[in-house]
């Protein structure tokens, strides 16, 4: 499912990013690459979301979050 649908508190694993090469690399530089696990800290429709990623807090626009496919691991 897209990251935008994950609920606050859920821990998810990144599966894929539906985006062009440039953006994919950019996100990988930020530490968002397939296999990484992240936790949703804040997600309120229709605004952007906050995730915990590699020990820091990262804000993602909702459009962006829609392109990031994740699998729920646990939490909530």
């Amino acid at each position: 499912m897209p990251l935008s649908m994950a609920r606050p508190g859920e821990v998810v694993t990144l599966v894929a990013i539906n985006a062009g090469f440039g953006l994919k690399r950019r996100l990988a530089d930020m530490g968002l690459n397939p296999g990484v696990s992240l936790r949703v800290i804040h997600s309120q429709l229709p605004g952007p979301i906050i995730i915990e990623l590699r020990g820091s807090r990262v804000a993602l626009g909702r459009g962006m979050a829609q392109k990031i496919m994740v699998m729920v691991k646990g939490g909530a």
Partner: protein
Amino acid sequence: MGEKKGKRKGKEREQKKGQGKEITIALAGNPNSGKTTVFNNLTGAHQHVGNWPGVTVEKKEGVCRYGDCRIKVVDLPGVYSLTAYSIDELIARNFIVEEEPDVVVDIVDATNLERNLYLTVQLLEMGARLIIALNMMDEASERGYRIDVKHLSYHLGVPVVPMVASRDQGTEELLEEIVNIVGTESTSANCLKIDYGREVEGEIEKLERMVSQTALSRKYPPRWLAVKLLEEDEEILKKFEELDSEEILQAKDRALEHLRSVYGDDVETIIADRRYGFISGLLKDIIKRPPTPRLTWSDKLDKVIVSRWLGIPLFLAIMFAVFQFIFALSGPLMEWISAGFDWLAERAMGISPEWLGSLIGNGIIGGVGTVLTFIPPIFLLFAAIAVLEDSGYMARAAFVMDRLMHKIGLHGRSFIPMILGFGCNIPAIMATRTIENPRDRLITILINPLMSCGARLPIYTLLAAAFFPAHQGLVVFSMYLIGIILAILMASIFRRLFPGPVGHFVMELPPYRLPTARGVLLHMWERGKHFLWKAGTIIVGVVVFVWLLSSLPWGVEYASPDSWIGQLGRIIAPVFGPSGFGDWQAAVSLFFGFLAKEVVVGTMGAIFAVEEGNLGTAIASQLGWTPLIAYAFMVFALLYVPCVAAMAVIKAETGSWRWPALAIGYELTLAWIMATLVYQIGRLLGFG
């Protein structure tokens, strides 16, 4: 004051000075890693801001002495990575390669090692002679992190200096390490080698062999070039194209093709993935962390601050509080300064010959003195902006506004330059470089002059005090609000004119931190001194010119309608008739205000040559303005044109005169329409 401590330490350092070596060091690090604080600790007030060659990105340099060494400190832009995607990252990378600093000090946030070490790894891959300044050790131990500094140093093969920059701890040790490492002969380019896996390594090896035959390998480590080729780094590709190294570029394509057949689509991210993999492995070895709490207190604070319902009201409340605070605090200070200049002007008028007394009293003190009266609110404004930035709130404001910004075709990141514009539009326009999408960036630049800068504050403060004594804070706040609203409106118009996809909003949110007094004061001084500099140069110049125009032709009554300035004003003034302020004095002050917005008030000061009492009341009594006219004038002054310096920056950042021309055109139109609307509608409603 935080300054004192720095000075004392600076002196200690200075005492050890002799005629010794020159060392150049570069400070690298992520945004929010405390890099600026380290820079301030090292250099104290001995710093200056210039530009990087070719671009207008600010370059901060400073000097400090240690032992018999004179150390030049260059502050590189804060970056997460060293790719070719943003100007900032390119600048950092090129400086290290081309200027070859003796040492690169990498400031690493100990509470956020995983992300920070990503940059460290890249610096090491480039073969930079590195020292890691492990900052925020206090916060890390508060969180219960136990970091094995020796092991970290051993694994990466570079010195690691633990420090708490916010309390100036570890600075001496860092300096000692710098001098030590320079003293030892460099063990030539001992680059860190990350194992990218068998397949990738095979390709790297092939490319490395080819690359080492080229001239580029003399400047860059060949392995690094090979990795960059696989990452399809635009700048490195361009360099090889320039060398006509067709075969290398073809080899790169073949390599990527092969890797794609092995890894599929993930090939774009495999290199970043391995770097993070290396870091995770390293962290397991060197850090012990207690199980992370589900939510830190910073997260809990965010639950309120960025919440859907409270986010925007809270932002407005904070901004309003900031302005109230600025006015409450600066009011009495301004009265003192003003009284001081009045006293000076009175003395000056006694100087003979009479014309000299008039030049000094009416012209220079009347004009420049009026502008200098506004030091307190302008400096406080810069301090307030520094507090918003350093506390971490600025990033939250961008987050909160993201939704609204999306409605006008921009995203949250564009909001930060808007708030910075409240201080000065020039650094604000430069700050748009963090926006990657060129169209988003252009629009953000074009609307920035609508954000009311500190130089416009004197106009509002002056008129609000004279015409709205009971509601000064509110009236001034309304100016800022009008600026924001019109900026949003114009952005949506520009978005229609330049259609295209909106860029992506990705931004790190630093944890909330208490800003340090030293950091805030230094920031305030660094920005504020430009204002003082302008007062001493442009504004003195214009004011003397205005005085001259007011005194000529010979024998005319000073600043009368028949003086040259009066004649000039009378030509322009009719344009402003419909807006309510068709007086020649208002017209000329706006005319000269094009040079710098402080000049509007400075010109009025010189024209009215107020000897006693205040300029605001003089305007009210001599021009017969009503509060409505004053408000319309404020609206016009808010909107009408970017100052000359801002125009030059727009030109530099966009690379064409078209855009500053567009900015002037739309702003003048908008200003006239808005001021006229305010005046005409206000009159219909019976406000005078």
